[in-house]
């Protein structure tokens, strides 16, 4: 149940005065500082976070907290617009860009009293699955510094040890690392082709990709408009439910959100799984799957089976076409969405002044990394008639 989640426990502690929002915020900020080597954060909004914590404290003193999330420190992936706080998408194109508006999901979190610690690192413009290709450098998986990992690796020289770390996965690697390293209780990521679920798996946290249309994309700088969703990263499933409950619902500013009223829900304590039917797609047993993953997959299936659920093999016959289709659709929309970055209205503008065309070309060459440029070229190729 929701009351078992970490957020609920913290919320209870805040209500009872066992800890204050300001203390909580300060501790998290200190942890952010001491885990700087993870490179999970691009921007730390220390001043505004402390101010938000202060305001939360006032509300708790008056006995009027805004909800479970009031005073809870959270982080937001740096492809969400945050008014007054830099939004870079880990790209030279938007270095220094201060958006004048909040993404709807950011606004909702703030309206619930959450404390925004900062913006997290990602692959440039969310293009990638490692969080290694951003302009601010790669994100390091906190588990790189775990006992298990250290024990596995051969003793090395100090400099080799420094560079011996594993990736977070991506593209929401910064958010996953931030949650995994305890610097915040929840983080927003984005998911188009796995960008929330992938880093969640790598960093050992819960990653939820909500169904398209459930949560507003207004203010999420798009990769693929027809597939993007804001993603939720937490340390337990109940917290993910809390976040989903506070973010879901129709947004008039996003015409692709479902019109129906969102009905808030509570996660039941699932003790009886006998009515549950679990399908295992046979095509997912693909060539190249590591034995470790296969074993874990089987283990999970066995867990459900032994608990009484029905576990059956299913077929998703078009699986082998999915990645190809994804690439075509994704690059086509990327080519389209990136067309607005021309240096005219905002963002980086090249010094090249010979003509509008040359200014555009230089700006885009200077502002985008190879991955972004590669996808734009592919996408335009697919969109061309001839």
């Amino acid at each position: 149940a929701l009351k078992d989640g970490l957020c609920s426990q913290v919320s209870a502690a805040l209500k009872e005065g066992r800890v204050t929002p300001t203390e909580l915020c300060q501790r998290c900020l200190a942890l952010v500082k001491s885990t700087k080597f993870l490179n999970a954060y691009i921007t730390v909004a220390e001043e505004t976070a402390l101010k938000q914590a202060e305001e939360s404290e006032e509300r708790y003193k008056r006995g009027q907290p805004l909800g479970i999330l009031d005073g809870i420190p959270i982080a937001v992936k740096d492809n969400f617009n945050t008014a007054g706080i830099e939004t870079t998408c880990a790209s030279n194109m938007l270095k220094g860009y201060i958006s004048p508006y909040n993404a709807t999901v950011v606004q909702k979190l703030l309206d619930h009293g959450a404390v925004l610690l900062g913006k997290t690192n990602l692959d440039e413009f969310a293009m990638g699955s490692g969080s290694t290709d951003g302009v601010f450098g790669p994100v390091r998986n906190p588990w790189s510094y775990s006992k298990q990992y250290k024990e596995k690796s051969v003793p090395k020289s100090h400099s080799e040890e420094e560079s011996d770390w594993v990736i977070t996965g991506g593209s929401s690697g910064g958010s996953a690392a931030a949650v995994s390293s305890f610097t915040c209780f929840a983080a927003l990521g984005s998911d188009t082709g796995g960008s929330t679920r992938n880093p969640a798996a790598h960093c050992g946290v819960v990653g939820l990709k909500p169904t398209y249309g459930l949560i507003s994309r207004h203010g999420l700088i798009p990769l693929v408009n027809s597939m993007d969703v804001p993603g939720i990263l937490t340390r337990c499933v109940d917290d993910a439910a809390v976040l989903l409950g506070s973010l879901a619902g129709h947004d008039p500013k996003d015409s692709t959100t479902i019109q129906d009223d969102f009905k808030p829900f509570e996660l039941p304590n699932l003790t009886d799984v006998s009515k549950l039917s679990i399908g295992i797609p046979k095509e997912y047993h693909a060539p190249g799957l590591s034995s470790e993953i296969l074993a874990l997959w089987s283990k999970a299936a066995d867990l459900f089976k032994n608990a009484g659920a029905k576990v059956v093999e299913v077929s998703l016959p078009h699986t082998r076409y999915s990645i190809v289709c994804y690439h075509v659709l994704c690059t086509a929309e990327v080519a389209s969405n990136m067309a607005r970055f021309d240096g005219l209205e905002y963002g980086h503008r090249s010094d090249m002044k010979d003509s509008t065309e040359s200014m555009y070309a230089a700006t885009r060459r200077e502002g985008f990394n190879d991955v972004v440029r590669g996808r734009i070229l592919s996408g335009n190729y697919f969109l061309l008639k001839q």
Partner: protein
Amino acid sequence: LAPWIPVVGLEIHAQISSNSKLFSGSQVQFAAPPNSLVSFFDASLPGTLPVLNRRCVEAAVMTGLALNCSINKKSLFDRKHYFYADLPAGYQITQQRVPIAVNGSLSYSLCIDNKMSQMVTKTVRIKQIQLEQDSGKSLHDDTRCQTLVDLNRAGVGLMEVVMEPDMCCGEEAAAAVRELQLILQTLGSSQAVMAEGQLRVDANVSVHHPGEPYGVRTEVKNINSIRFLAKAVDYEIQRQIEELENGGTILNETRAFDSKLGCTVPMRDKEGKQDYRFMPEPNLPPLILYDTKSLPANMNHQQVINIDWIQERLPDLPSVKREKLVEQYGILPEHSFTLLNEDGLAEFFESVVKQTQMKPKKVIGWILNDLLSYLKQHSLTVKESPVSSILLADLLNLLEKKEISSTAAKRVLAELWKGEGKTPLEIVKEQKLELLQDQKELEQICQAVIDGQENEVIMMVLG
């Protein structure tokens, strides 16, 4: 020499008359300070999304119905990509695959000769009407090697009306556009004032010999008035004929009309043939419209558009208004055209008719010959007329009651134009223009004249 058949089609962009833009809430206003009507979405700030303006859809439906189109109950939005300084997103949102209205027609009339004594009705097919965004404006400052960009107009709603190549000359094109303009103004879906850029016309022109396939067509842009439209089209037809008769070929190109020189010139090459890389607009679901039959029972009336509801509330179109004028007042069809062609003239005419005993058939002469020609001479609109309908009605009443002659009436009218605030009766008294009805008085005056001119009278009698 084998005869040539000119073929003319038109692409017309009409700015939708609405408070806010097609996909954002910023205001629509002519001649506002630069970049003062630009929302985050209009400026293409990353993360912003389009939200469809209901009023713009209604305007397009009204226009489609008035042009006898089928309204597509499901239409789609697409992105049309090209890079230009006045297109912040790098693409325009338009309707390329399935537009909102298709397969309509527009009837318009032409006079056979210049005297407007015989009118003939023609029809042009409307291929489609689509909703799309307008672009911003860019001004090239060559002296300082810079381009100034004003995004006030970026995102304003447009209806693109595509007329099939059913026209054959400048006069037909002009008449068709004039009629469309009147229809749009009557509906209120667009103010359609060409001078303010609310109505823009591009012409597609080609020529061919009878029995042969259509020739290569050129597109003519930069046409700023209906008069120039006729000139541009006729010039281009002539140019093509001359070119072909001299053994040349016609290039499939875009040409601009130069109003000073009265000719078309090739436009600066816009990167040859453009591939617009069309793609569905993923942020907008299909546009669904309903009629009374398909309207779901418990649908919120505010959330949907009912085509039948709009149809029922369409005002009288110009063609209907003209018929009514002819029927009600017994005027000629040509007269009804002139009345509707001039903003406010029909209302003025009806107002005069109400206030005078003179028959409408006689009033119309005064309206069309005297009033209108004076207004034209002084470049005034009906609204700006120094002679109000009341004054004219008073004057016509004096004439009708035979208190003055028609010559005298014309003199009074000339005096009224001065706008000095005198009534017709005052002017008549001032200038002693009263018709003398008394037979004896008349005889006395004539006798006095004859008495005073004895020599001339003798000369006349002698022949």
